[in-house]
């Protein structure tokens, strides 16, 4: 027989154990040997997500909706697995700015707006109230069920008993006491509650083990494992239908998954344990898979217990939400039933304590303090130690939050299932998601947008979820739901603007998110962010880039005394703690604060951040401003300074640019000058070379003319020889002058080209005729190999002939003395006309093959005794061939000697001839 007092005793003993763990955890933290600095404790503390909703409610939901309990766990799993980066960024931002709550986060992002912080706090408090009610309901029902052991009797409705004798009320007071003990023993600048985290981690283990114990008992104790259990269930049509009936559609799963994805980030208690209490950012990596694993394990036995309950109580007289407790009771498992109760208590306590602490911090920092400061901050500042006031505000807030929860439970929650109550809370906190996530990635998001979005979303949440829940409990006429307010059908809260066909929750989420996101985006686009907003936006969005010098978000211009700052800090966090942190700060920077009178901007910012941890960013700014003697740099001034700085930067940037351009220009000029000098040298060389080439034949002509004139006695043969030399040298001189003029004209582009389509065959024939006497005068064998058909080319006929004549004369000049042989090849090569002139002379050394096409550059091979040309023939030939779009080069002839070849593009008129040609060839 379990008497009421023994259950109470067990419960108190368990809560005292939790408190002992918390106390020990705090002691260890003070000693610098943190109990919680590992990813496993961290993960277990995040498991505060699993409340009595999970412990009792999941089974209840499964008993009526099959797999419907599941999406609430899929959402967080997805967030942790896929959005680890998002969590890391939030944690990073919070650490950099000493953010202590989700209200602080959103207010800080949008320019440290006190209004926004208050709004978020209000939404959070109103939104979480049903959730706390849910816990109170679970604990009180489970207590009232257990107290009748071994009879399974559903307890009477609370509202029928007086408040002071209502179990739920007593539970609320008890929990408030413990939350106060856990969370508000002292003001911590960093708002870390290591002891509390340790206790939460412990209760996460207890609830898990308790739930597994029940599950194992049902599955393996009452039945022979899962197979037996499900087989038995299948025989009962009502249970089998749970998983096959079309009533349980999966249509609202996306809503539930999205909702819980947002909730795991936006629930104040999750923000508290995941972000604020995080001691090491790396822990999130392990938690990313450990936490989903915890969720998986705790959900394994939900269905078996639900089925076990349904089989045990087929008539439906027992609330499915109590199966975890009532199934062991029905089998007289006293110890197990008690363990189940403790597990449920554990789940509820954890949630209530963390939520109460988180909400009380928000109420104190973002609601009460800003109001107090605004109303009478000077009077407040004159008070000595404010840490006592802060603690009182927080303690009062905790009591208030729990009483609100109790009120909701007593007046509304009685009739609804646990899960339904919880989802209302989820929908409320999900309203934070757009402002929060948007604020981390969109710099353009503004305060107005956030306020508009949150207000609209919250208003629609109230209208489509909260008010209908009041109506269903009889606090509003039910006609409000059925016919709309004042009978306006279009405004029915479950079918707003005629939108029907969705479940109530999806419907509410649809409208509230449209209002929220729409207001957020439109408001942001339509308003211009203030200066401080812009700074904060940049700090939040670019957080990893800016953790260094620009990490502080305040701009102070000195002029606060160290003593004033010390006194200010001492008022909020106590003089002992103040001494400790300031000494630490001084040590870190090698300062002696004792001697320092004026605090520099860095110290003022440091104090502001410290205070932000205790009283929130917005209030901290006001407080520090009060001792900084109004010397906060006005934000316009900051922007001006930034503007001037950026102008200077821009100016110096331009200077740099200009100087780079100058340098570049100098380089270009130098290069151009070098090039000019080089050209000048080349021109000098050219003139000198031309002079040499002209003087050489002139020397012979003058010498022999004088010899002939001075020596009339010369014998006729010698006379004849000298005269021949004079004539030849005169011809050479003439040729040379012509070629120089030609080349000059070509290079200057003043050559008069007579471009026509030419049959190359006739040009080759004429060139052979022109060189006929030259060839005939030597013993050279001339061979001609021409394709039967040569493509026409577009060229100047005389110039093309000049090239061929040049090459033939060269070949004749350089071929073998005794058995000279010159071959002329003509054909096609790669769609071009090809003409090659081959000799069997010594050839051109590889190193000279480029240079011989330059002016006055003859191969200096073993050719000393060879007759000299003008040194311009090949240079002119190259100019001509290249003018026709062709290419000229020299290579080794197949046997020995040189092969001078050139190709020319064929003329376009050939295209018409080609088919005929091809058919000819084919034949």
């Amino acid at each position, binding site marked *: 027989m379990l008497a009421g007092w023994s259950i109470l005793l067990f419960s108190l003993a368990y809560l005292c154990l939790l408190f002992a763990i918390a106390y020990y955890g705090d002691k260890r933290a003070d000693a610098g040997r943190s109990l919680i600095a590992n990813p496993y404790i961290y993960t277990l503390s995040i498991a505060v997500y699993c409340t009595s909703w999970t412990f009792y409610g999941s089974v209840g939901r499964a008993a009526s909706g099959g797999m419907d309990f599941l999406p609430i766990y899929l959402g967080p799993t997805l967030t942790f697995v896929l959005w680890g980066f998002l969590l890391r960024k939030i944690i990073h931002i919070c650490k950099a700015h000493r953010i202590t709550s989700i209200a602080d986060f959103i207010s800080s992002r949008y320019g440290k707006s006190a209004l926004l912080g208050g709004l978020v706090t209000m939404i959070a408090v109103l939104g979480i109230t049903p959730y706390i009610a849910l816990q109170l309901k679970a604990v009180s029902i489970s207590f009232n069920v257990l107290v009748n052991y071994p009879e399974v009797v559903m307890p009477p409705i609370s509202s029928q008993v007086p408040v002071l004798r209502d179990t739920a009320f007593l539970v609320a007071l008890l929990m408030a006491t413990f939350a106060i003990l856990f969370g508000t023993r002292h003001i911590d600048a960093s708002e870390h509650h290591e002891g509390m985290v340790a206790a939460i981690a412990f209760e996460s283990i207890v609830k898990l083990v308790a739930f597994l114990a029940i599950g194992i008992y049902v599955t393996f104790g009452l039945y022979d494992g899962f197979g037996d259990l499900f087989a038995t269930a299948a025989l009962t049509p009502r249970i089998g239908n749970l998983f096959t009936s079309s009533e349980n559609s999966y249509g609202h799963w996306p809503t539930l998954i999205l909702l819980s994805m947002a909730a795991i980030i936006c629930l104040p208690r999750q923000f508290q344990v995941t972000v604020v209490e995080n001691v090491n950012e790396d822990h999130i990596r392990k938690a990313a898979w450990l936490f989903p694993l915890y969720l998986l394990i705790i959900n394994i036995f939900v269905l078996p217990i639900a089925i076990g309950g349904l089989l045990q109580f087929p008539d439906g007289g027992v609330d499915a939400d109590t199966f975890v407790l009532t199934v062991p009771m029905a089998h007289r498992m006293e110890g197990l039933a008690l363990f189940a109760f403790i597990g449920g208590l554990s789940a509820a306590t954890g949630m209530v304590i963390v939520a109460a602490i988180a909400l009380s911090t928000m109420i104190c920092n973002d609601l009460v303090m800003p109001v107090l400061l605004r109303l009478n901050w000077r009077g407040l500042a004159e008070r000595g130690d404010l840490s006592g006031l802060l603690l009182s505000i927080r303690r009062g807030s905790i009591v208030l939050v729990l009483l609100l929860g109790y009120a909701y439970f007593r007046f509304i929650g009685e009739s609804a299932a646990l899960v339904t109550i919880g989802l209302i809370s989820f929908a409320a906190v999900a309203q934070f998601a757009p402002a929060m996530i948007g604020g981390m990635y969109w710099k353009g998001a503004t305060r107005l947008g956030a306020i508009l979005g949150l207000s609209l979303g919250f208003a629609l949440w109230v209208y489509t979820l909260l008010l209908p829940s009041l109506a269903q409990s009889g606090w509003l006429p039910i006609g409000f739901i059925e016919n709309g307010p004042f009978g306006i059908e279009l405004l029915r809260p479950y079918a707003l603007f005629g939108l029907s066909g969705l479940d109530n929750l999806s419907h509410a989420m649809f409208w509230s998110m449209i209002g929220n996101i729409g207001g957020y985006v439109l408001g942001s686009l339509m308003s211009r962010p203030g200066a401080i907003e812009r700074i904060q936006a940049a700090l939040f969005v670019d957080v990893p880039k800016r953790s260094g010098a620009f990490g502080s978000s305040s701009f102070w211009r000195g002029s606060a005394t160290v003593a004033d700052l010390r006194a200010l800090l001492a008022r909020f966090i106590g003089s002992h703690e103040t001494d400790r942190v300031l000494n630490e700060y001084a040590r870190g920077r090698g300062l002696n604060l004792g001697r320092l009178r004026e605090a520099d901007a860095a110290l003022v910012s440091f104090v502001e951040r410290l205070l932000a941890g205790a009283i929130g960013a917005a209030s901290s700014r006001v407080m520090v401003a009060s001792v900084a003697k109004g010397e906060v740099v006005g934000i316009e001034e900051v922007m001006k300074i930034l503007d001037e700085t950026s102008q200077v930067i821009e100016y110096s940037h331009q200077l740099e640019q200009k100087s780079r351009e100058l340098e570049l220009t100098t380089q270009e000029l130098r290069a151009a000058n070098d090039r000019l000098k080089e050209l000048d040298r080349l021109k000098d060389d050219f003139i*000198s070379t031309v*002079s*040499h*080439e002209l*003087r*050489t*034949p*002139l*020397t*012979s*002509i*003058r*010498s*022999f003319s*004088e*010899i002939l004139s*001075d*020596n009339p006695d010369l014998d006729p043969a010698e006379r004849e020889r000298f005269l021949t*030399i004079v004539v030849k*040298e005169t011809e050479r001189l003439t040729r040379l002058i012509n070629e120089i003029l030609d080349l000059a004209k070509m290079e200057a582009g003043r050559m008069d080209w007579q471009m026509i389509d030419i049959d190359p065959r006739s040009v080759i024939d004429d060139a052979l005729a022109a060189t006929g006497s030259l060839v005939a005068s030597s013993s050279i064998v001339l061979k001609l190999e021409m394709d039967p058909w040569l493509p026409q080319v577009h060229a100047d006929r005389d110039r093309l002939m000049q090239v061929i004549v040049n090459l033939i004369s060269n070949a004749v000049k350089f071929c073998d003395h005794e058995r000279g042989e010159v071959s002329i090849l003509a054909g096609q090569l790669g769609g071009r006309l090809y003409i090659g002139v081959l000799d069997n002379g010594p050839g051109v050394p590889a190193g000279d093959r480029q240079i011989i096409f330059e002016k006055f550059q003859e191969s*200096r091979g073993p050719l*000393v*005794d060879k007759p*000299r040309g003008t040194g311009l023939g090949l240079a002119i030939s190259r100019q001509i061939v290249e003018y026709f779009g062709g290419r000229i080069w020299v290579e080794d002839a197949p046997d020995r000697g040189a092969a001078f070849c050139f190709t020319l593009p064929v003329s376009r008129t050939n295209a018409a001839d080609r088919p005929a040609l091809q058919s000819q060839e084919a034949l």
Partner: protein
Amino acid sequence: MSRKILVVEDEPNIVDSLSFLMKRAGFEVLIARDGDTAIRMMQSRPADLVLLDVMLPRRDGFEVCREIRANPDWKSVRIIMLTARGRDLDRRKGLQLGADDYVTKPFSTHDIIARVQKLLGPEDG
């Protein structure tokens, strides 16, 4: 024994005319078509005067001049440089290297004979 003149020149027609002129003036004429040959010939049969063209294949006239002046055995050898490049720069360079005279092409046949005779002085025997 008549005095020897080495004509160093790669242009056949100019070699022809110089050798005709020098022979007519009573000198023995040796001919080299390039710088290397010129040095080899000096080693086997040293000349009294060298008519040295500047623009020679491979080793040019300046180098040949420097080499002749570097050898003490050839201290008394006279050198007249011939060039078709009429630049003062070349003229100065030739004289600095130790050439005795410098003649620009095209030259007057009377003038060049006079210069050779002047450098070698009246015939002793």
